[in-house]
């Protein structure tokens, strides 16, 4: 039975992108996040954020948009992919621990 389980684990599908896993503390590079805070802006209501206390007309289409360059978008996407791969590895490890019980 254990041999069968090991075979299942070894033959289980892996993500196509088998990138090297990063340590958790490297998944959230602070300089990048700070840079994102400087670079991006969220436009609401036609270009400028509304003042505090102003209500949006909820019947109108909310013109929300995020001004983010493709370069930064790719960076955060890569971070998210690394996070997913790390989580999958953690989940597999926990499952294998359960099999051993």
């Amino acid at each position, binding site marked *: 039975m254990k041999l069968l389980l090991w075979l*299942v684990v070894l033959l289980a599908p892996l993500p196509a992108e088998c990138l090297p896993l990063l340590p958790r503390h490297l998944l959230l590079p602070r300089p990048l996040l700070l840079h994102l805070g400087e670079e991006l802006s969220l436009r609401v209501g036609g270009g400028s954020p509304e003042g505090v206390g102003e209500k*949006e007309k909820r019947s109108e289409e909310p013109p*929300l948009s*995020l001004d983010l360059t*493709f370069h930064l978008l790719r960076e955060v996407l890569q971070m998210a992919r690394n996070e*997913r791969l790390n989580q999958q590895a953690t989940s597999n490890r926990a499952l294998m621990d359960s099999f051993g019980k």
Partner: protein
Amino acid sequence: MSVAPRTHFLLFLISLSSRMGLSRYIEDIEAADGLYSLLSLDQKRDSEDFIFRRPLRCLDMLATDGSYTFVASRPQLACAAFIIAEPSEVISLELSDVNIDCSAGDFIKMFDGWVLKGEKFPSKQDHELPLHQRYTDYCSSPATGATSRSSQNVAMIFFRLHSADSGFTLAIKKLHNPFPCNIMSQSPEGSFTMVLPHQRKNCSFSIIYPVEIRLTDLSLGHAKSNELNPQRQLWSGCSGSGDYVELLGGNGVDTSMMFPVADLCFSLSGLAQMKIGCDNSVVRLVSSGNYINRVSFQYRLLEQSELPKTQENALDNFCSVE
């Protein structure tokens, strides 16, 4: 029943089923739970610990199923999170533990797609819903505005919180989509097959990198690949054709604002490739709904040295294509 009427009856049933799109393409094997299915009931109950949880950031990109909690430490007036799944998945979003003051201008809005610099993916032309139906506003109706399901593998959430300690929890779950349409690729390399079985719609596969795209297989309804036309070039325009594939390049996410660099309107069994040196490269399948259309392609990231050279003295602001 004699053979002839039975034959006619069976042919009638087959033609009915083809009109309804019932074919082997509809087979949808339920997504296997993988290793999870090997657990016992007790172990599955304990699997609550397997749910991924972490704080949500004001600007975030989420690609993992799980629970994300945002608590404002100070007023946060401009926050958004991109959510992306695998190409053959759609995204289910659920809000809980919502502690915001809608009357004070707080909001949480979920969008069916991505919005970037005013451009939307999928475009208005390619999405089945009108634009206003793609937004789910929690404050408009907390009962129905707390859940949302995307039509493709990307979604987004915008939120604004004026008070410290206000916040919410967002649960993300990915669901299998048997016929993906309008896909944003997570990676700059890979391969994909897009199938549109008797569906009148246009589907785009978007790659937010400069890539070389290789079309390896193309099957269109009005296949006339056996008719040789030496004077007809591979990249001739397909305007007026019912079903075709087009390659787009541009520097935004809205496919309706991108430049068509090539199109194919007859089936292809060989290899066709193109380098698109744009921030966004798209394979778009235009389908009339009369046929079962299929396109397979591979793509890889272009290195800096491989980027096609831009034409000197070019007046149009168009990214390079080769």
